[in-house]
């Protein structure tokens, strides 16, 4: 059963990067979740796929340095607010060698 908070918050649509989806069997590239901020969105992702928060955020706490989260075309932070129905894209940044 959804908790009271989830029932009150309108869903946002989140697109996950392929490299993240591969790490969590059963996860999908696109998911609708109730969230009014990026932090809440990550809470919801972690509740659905335990451990996903650690892949997206470090213990600072902050979004990981090589993970980009875009909301309405703008790079977001954990505190960024999400409007009902917002489209959120999580991208792996240029990295590696």
């Amino acid at each position: 059963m959804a908790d009271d908070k989830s029932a009150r918050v309108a869903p946002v649509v989140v697109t996950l990067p392929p490299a993240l989806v591969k790490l969590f069997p059963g996860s999908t590239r696109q998911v609708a979740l109730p969230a009014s901020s990026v932090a809440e969105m990550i809470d919801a992702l972690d509740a659905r796929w335990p451990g996903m928060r650690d892949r997206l955020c470090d213990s600072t706490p902050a979004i990981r340095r090589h993970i980009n989260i875009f909301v309405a075309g703008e790079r977001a932070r954990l505190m960024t607010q999400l409007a009902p129905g917002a489209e959120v894209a999580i991208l792996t940044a240029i990295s590696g060698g």
Partner: protein
Amino acid sequence: MAKRVLVLVGTKKGAFILESDAARSSWTQRGPYCETWPMNHVIGDPASGTIYGGGGNEWFGAAVWKSEDLGKSWTHSSAGLAYAAGETPIKSVWSLSPGAKRMHAGVEPAGLFQSDDGGQSWEHVAGLRDHPSRPQWQPGGGGLILHSLVRHPQDEQQLWVGISSAGVFHTADGGASWEPRNQGTRCDFLPEGQRYPEIGQCVHCIVMAPGAAHRLYQQNHCGMYVSEDGGEHWNSIEAGLPSSFGFPAAVHPRDPATLFLLPLNGDIKGRFVPDAKAAVWRTRDCGDHWKALRQGLPQENAYFGVLRQAMATDILAPCGVYFGTGTGSLYASADEGDTWKCIARHLPTISSVETLVVDG
């Protein structure tokens, strides 16, 4: 019963497994595993047959990977593998040591974690980072990393760790308190008169002699050493070796006097095998005498190094010896180093080599 010999290889782009039977004459290779994450240490638990991999990915952070089916499938977790909010976050897992009841993990920036549920969740062993010397810990070339974990074979409360470049530390109370164990190890990179400090040594690798918990061997940035008192005092064993520099050390599975080293030409000369000729060096008498083992290894134009966790032995008789190069080649000996052959080429940079022998 027939045996399966697995060589577990951690690389900059995933884990690989080489497999053979007890003859160790022909090998099959599989991988890459762990979604091609950089894997600093892949190790098997001989009691359970479980394989663990420690690493860190630039996108997704540090994690411990786990396979309970000899590499066919893997899970990952970093639950609890974190410092307090506000501290520099953990970048990667550098070393793993599964014990009878408890497993330990060393991480970057240097710190120690323990797991009592087979790596599913982790707890910070805060006593180490509470050591008053911590503000003086300086990163080595590989970062500020806890790379060597040596557990006492009978006393679960005792553990030695190697931190680059803070040195060796020992706990006798399960990690609550720690003492530096660096007396006698040199810091050539410090001014004259200051080269034997209490901490700050650039330890590269520490290993324990089998059946002799008092005897430790160490490959340091500045020399090779043996200790006969659990690291309280170290004595140089570099005489007879071609340099004082190298990274890995591996002990024989049964003979406490036998040690394998792989000296490189020096820290300012490229860190290749000396004269571009590869050799593993073996002592049978605790470092008093050394023999270069070259048969089957490249003896010209070999410009590779071998990293600190990239050499290992197996438990068979005669024991196998294995090392992996920075250029992605894996060499194996089935006769305690007397002869060698290359069993894998063109792998990514090899960070670690371990073995696991299971019933076939």
